[in-house]
């Protein structure tokens, strides 16, 4: 076999074409004399939300086929995690879905906790819920801004990013970082929330309620926006389930499947919230479901703040969690644990576990295999963006290019999560 690099770049690029598919243009009616135009949307394109490449076959303005090609930001995080101690791998998994880092971290930590059979204190669980729900709002806000931008409403991006920044301020208060906070720790959270956090969070939710109302007033009462979304990109519920689609996309068809309710984790059963569902599953439903989810998330945050239990914020199992700073100066044991943890990490008994949670984009599963050492033998993320991307073809086929863009926007794919 000759070296791949000896083949000119153009020819290598041409290796991925529709001819390789068994039946190009399956599922659509194209006349024999139709003028087809193959076009690459992406990898660098304003609307692909990252480096997603869509191989589109157009007939005029109508998308007859779309094949998503991915891998342009594949950074091998799953492989890299195998070389990291468990508690250091958290920083890696956080960078997969870079808009929902708390969820990645939680899925991984929960999987490791299950392997360790480690109990998480209730206060830590509530703090996790608060941060995950804030993260959900932040993620949906980013989606709202970019989706509206793709539809041509440019101002939404700045407004939603303004509000997202307030959430990032909160994250900075609690975790010290704005993105990729590594706030969740195996066994709990790394630090208690600082004074003032609660008041600021309440201020935020109160503020955010009016803001969402304003955004709805801007978008929902705009005839152009509504008509761009109405009755577009409908995929039947059964087909979505076959495609493994979960999260708001599935709920937009009227299915109320939400892991927070269906299989509660992290004390979600303590909170009173509703699951917004749509009716027909078009883009408009997807938009409405996400907007409503933000409101529900704010309710959860407020309830969690109201009922925040007293107690430790991390397990007192010193083999898993770092001892508090002040103990290091007084306790020899704490120093030893600290040394062991920092140098070697903790060991996890052999076993494998699949932990699934509800991320802003759907079911986020973390599969961890432990071989008894202090490093995981396998970390796999079932990322919802990755799975949901498969429904793009069904959503966008036989629609116009503009609808394809709207479909990408409503799909809300995060390329970091898709490629990992």
């Amino acid at each position, binding site marked *: 076999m000759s070296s791949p690099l000896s*083949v000119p770049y153009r020819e290598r690029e041409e290796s991925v074409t529709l001819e390789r598919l068994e039946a190009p243009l399956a599922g659509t009616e194209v006349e024999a004399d139709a003028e087809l135009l193959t076009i690459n949307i992406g990898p660098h394109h304003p609307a692909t939300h990252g480096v997603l490449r869509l191989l589109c076959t157009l007939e005029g303005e109508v998308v007859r086929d779309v094949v998503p090609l*991915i891998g342009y930001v594949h950074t091998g995080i799953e492989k890299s995690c195998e070389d990291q101690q468990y508690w250091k791998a958290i920083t890696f998994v956080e960078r997969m879905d870079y808009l929902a880092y708390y969820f990645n971290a939680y899925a991984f930590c929960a999987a490791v906790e299950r392997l360790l059979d480690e109990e998480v204190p209730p206060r830590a669980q509530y703090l996790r819920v608060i941060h995950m729900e804030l993260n959900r709002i932040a993620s949906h806000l980013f989606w709202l801004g970019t989706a509206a931008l793709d539809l041509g409403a440019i101002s939404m991006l700045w407004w939603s990013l303004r509000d997202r920044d307030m959430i990032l301020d909160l994250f900075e208060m609690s975790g010290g970082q704005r993105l990729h906070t590594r706030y969740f720790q195996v066994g709990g959270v790394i630090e208690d929330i600082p004074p003032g956090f609660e008041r600021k969070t309440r201020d935020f939710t109160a503020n955010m309620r009016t803001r969402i109302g304003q955004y709805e007033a801007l978008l929902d009462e705009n005839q152009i926006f509504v008509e761009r979304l109405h009755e577009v990109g409908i995929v039947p519920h059964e087909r979505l389930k*076959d495609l493994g689609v979960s999260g708001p996309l599935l709920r937009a068809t009227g299915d109320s499947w939400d892991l927070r309710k269906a299989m509660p984790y992290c004390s979600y059963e303590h909170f009173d919230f509703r699951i917004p569902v749509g009716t027909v599953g078009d883009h408009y439903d997807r938009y409405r479901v996400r907007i409503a989810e933000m409101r529900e998330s704010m309710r959860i945050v407020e309830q969690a703040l109201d009922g925040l239990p007293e107690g430790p914020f991390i397990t007192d199992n010193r083999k898993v969690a770092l001892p508090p700073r002040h103990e290091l100066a007084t306790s020899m044991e704490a120093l030893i644990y600290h040394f062991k943890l920092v140098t070697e990490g903790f060991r996890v008994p052999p076993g494998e*576990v699949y932990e699934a949670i509800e991320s802003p984009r759907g079911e986020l599963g973390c599969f961890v295999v432990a071989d008894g050492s202090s490093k995981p*033998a396998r970390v796999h993320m079932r990322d919802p963006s*990755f799975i949901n991307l498969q429904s793009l073809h069904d959503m966008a086929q036989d629609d116009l290019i503009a609808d394809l863009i709207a479909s990408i926007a409503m799909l809300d794919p995060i390329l970091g999560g898709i490629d990992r």
Partner: protein
Amino acid sequence: MIDPTGLELVARAVRGAVGDGSVRDTVHAHGAATLDVPPEDVHEVLGFLHSDADEPFDFLSSLHGCDYFPAEPRLAVHYQLLSTERRERLGVRTRVTVEAAESGVVPTVTDLFPTADFQEKEVFDFFGVRFAGHEDLRRLHMPEDYEGHPQRRDFPIGGEPVLYTFNEQRVPRWYE
């Protein structure tokens, strides 16, 4: 979550429907239930679980590969099934040797669960498991012309040469 008894009931039903050898082992650990299935029976077992009217596992939440390196058979494909009716998860695992995996012993389940399409590509890409019957099995994340399957445990970490203009003379085999 399926309790151990429930898992045995499922295993018995599967054995009854597909065949005695279709479930090699049942594992119940950390609150998760897993059936260990030989690769040639994977399709029938999943088909049975998928369409069984009593307790259908209608949703394939995840399909992923795994490499249990020192142990043999080394490679494994995991299927995480979910029943939205029962709100229960069930793992199905099949373990194959490297040679068997590359010769295409594991059947595709894309006909049962279209969601498996990308994920089987991913497993093929990272572990080299060749799914028999998959329509369009090719690399997904790695470049088309990549050699090797990077998530196998014996694949070294790091050291991928990256081509820039400043080092294009030094990248191995650039002139070939």
